[in-house]
């Protein structure tokens, strides 16, 4: 179980617990559950890399404690 911090620079900072073999889409759903947005509206980025929904976290090498940028589309 890993914990990922998601920060949109407008005041929303969320810590989400998930499995490394979860996909980004699952992660987005968890974030949505915590923040109250719609998961389809969330875009997770790191600098200019946009994380795609169907790829697992471990494939993206997202480890425990990593920070992701939260944007909305």
């Amino acid at each position, binding site marked *: 179980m890993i914990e990922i911090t998601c920060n949109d620079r407008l*005041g929303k900072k969320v810590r989400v617990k998930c499995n490394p073999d979860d996909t980004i889409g699952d992660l987005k759903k968890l974030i949505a559950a915590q923040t109250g947005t719609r998961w389809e509206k969330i875009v997770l980025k790191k600098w200019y890399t946009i994380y795609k929904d169907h790829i697992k976290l471990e494939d993206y090498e997202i480890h425990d404690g990593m920070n992701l940028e939260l944007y909305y589309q």
Partner: protein
Amino acid sequence: MASRKEKPVTGKGNNSTSADDDRPTANSTNETSISIEETNRIRAKLGLKPLETGEKNSTDEPNSDKKDIHIPAENLREKKATEELRRKLDERREKRKIEQKLAQVRTVVQTATTEDDDTVSWVEKSRRLQKQKEDAAKQAKMLEEMDEAFGVGDMVTTELMKQKAKAYTSKDLRGLKVEHDRDNILEGKDVVLTLKDQNILQEEGDVLVNVNLIDTERYKRNNEIKKQKPGYQPYEEEEVDEHGLPKPKILLAKYDTEIDGEKRDSFVLGKAGDEEAKLKAQKSIKDKLQMQQKKIESLESRPMQIASEYYTAEEMVSFKKVKRRVKKGGTKGGRVLKADDLIQGTEEAVSSDLGSRKRKMEEEAVEDLSGFKVTIEESQKEIRQAIMKANKLKEKKVEQWDMTTVARSIKREPVEENESMEEDPMKSSIILNATAEFCRTLGDIPTYGMAGNRDEDEDELMDFERQLAEERRRNQEKEERKREAERLQERGGWNVLERENEQGSDDSMDVDRHEKDNATVILDEEPDVGSGMAAALKLAMSKGYLEKEEKKRIVISKSAQELQAQRYTIEDKATEDDKYSRRNRFDGPVVEFKDKEGYKPLPKLEYMDDNGKPMSTKEAFRHLSHKFHGKGSGKLKSEKRAKKDEDKMLMNRMSSTDTPLNTLKKLQDKQKELQSPYVVLSGKMATTSIVKPGKGKK
């Protein structure tokens, strides 16, 4: 997202108590996070597996560490090799199995060898086999009989029968929808209809379709699409139905299939279908009746005519002049009282007008009836106008504009101003006026007024200006000379003599002068040139034809004068040493050179060669021409010359007394050596021999 029970706390530094684990915790860093249980709940809702707990993490970590280690890529060759091996092993296994099986089977040979090679035994065997078959058949029969006894057989048969007998009648088909146009299915033709593919959960009933008809419909639709006209036609014409009724225009018709779905014609089998057909027929009849009732007019009904260029008779009627009621009579009748009337009090006019008004009313009445009594009215109008004019003339006589009145009216204003000026003559109150300023500057122009055509301008000048001049003249009586001096200054150096010149001028000039003197100081009359040269010169100067040359004298201050050279003439400048002066060495003063008095130069020119030898005239000229033309003689020539020079040189070096080889000197030297007056040239006693010793000895 699905509804959550607790909302996350996003307060600023709002720390919630950790008693309730399920509530999301907010740190001072403004982060929100929820517990594992809550997360698992959410995950379950989303359909994800629950979080892996930490224990697994511990085991995972070494694995993950191992994962971090570089795993070499699969060796495809090895993989292939292993697969090959596996395949081979499988094959061998199979083979073994088969062989085992076959091993069990007894071959003919084997049987032949094992058993007695007898026909008898073979016959027995075959009989045995047959018996077994019969026994098996019997067994089966027995079982069937048993089934029949229990009644199971019937059930089976009935079921079988049911499956076969699926026949249906038209009654069954009643109410089924066929998704084709009724017209497509022709009478008398057999059309095989099948059930249309539908979604499982569709609640609508079954729909029957024919495969061929579907194909034809699709083909037609595709054709339509291919032919498709542009969807938007801004100036499309009104389309008319088959009955002639205009087709209703639907907005954005091209999106209908997308929004509503494909529209397909369908009809229902059975009784319900018949009713539908009846409705359709009724509708068509109704339409036809409607058509007959309406009067349809096409746009082409009226034939085109060539427009005529001239008006027709009926159109001319519209141009008939309609005489309007003249308002003049009306205004006259009830006219506004003017000042003229008041002054005059001419009752005649008023009374006559009243009369005319009466007449006017009669005329109006006449006019209403017909418009052909225009002429009578016109004459009356003229009469009226004449009367008006006469009245006006009378008025005019009373008020006549005189020259005197004009002068008086004009003159009135400035007099007032003059009086005001007289009150304080000494106090020169400056009233600035644009024209006054302009006129004042006119005095500065030296040529102004000298041409002699400025007499008329005098009148145009402002009266104000004139007054000023008058005032000045008044003061002039007291201080005349001062004024003159001032005037001179103002005029810019005009001489007093001019005045004297003017005195001898014509009468007209006198008059003008007087007037001028009275008027202004600025304008002076043109002087008379006939008196003499001086006058003409003066005139020219004043006009500006001649320029007074005034030399500019540069005033040097005393201190500066000390710095300047006291005795300096311009000739000294010429002897200054600078680069320009040195070039012209011989430009200076030429004086007889007295050092070499008796010197008579010898005009002897000596030219030297490159080698330092003196050249003859011819050679010198050659040298010069070579230099002039820039090219010398060619190779041959120069060699020849060089050889000649060399020969010459040798010639010079040659001894005149001796042979070239110095024979005589050698002889003399030999004689000295031998101490004899003779030298034996050859023979036994010869000391010198030409023959080489080496040859002889060999």
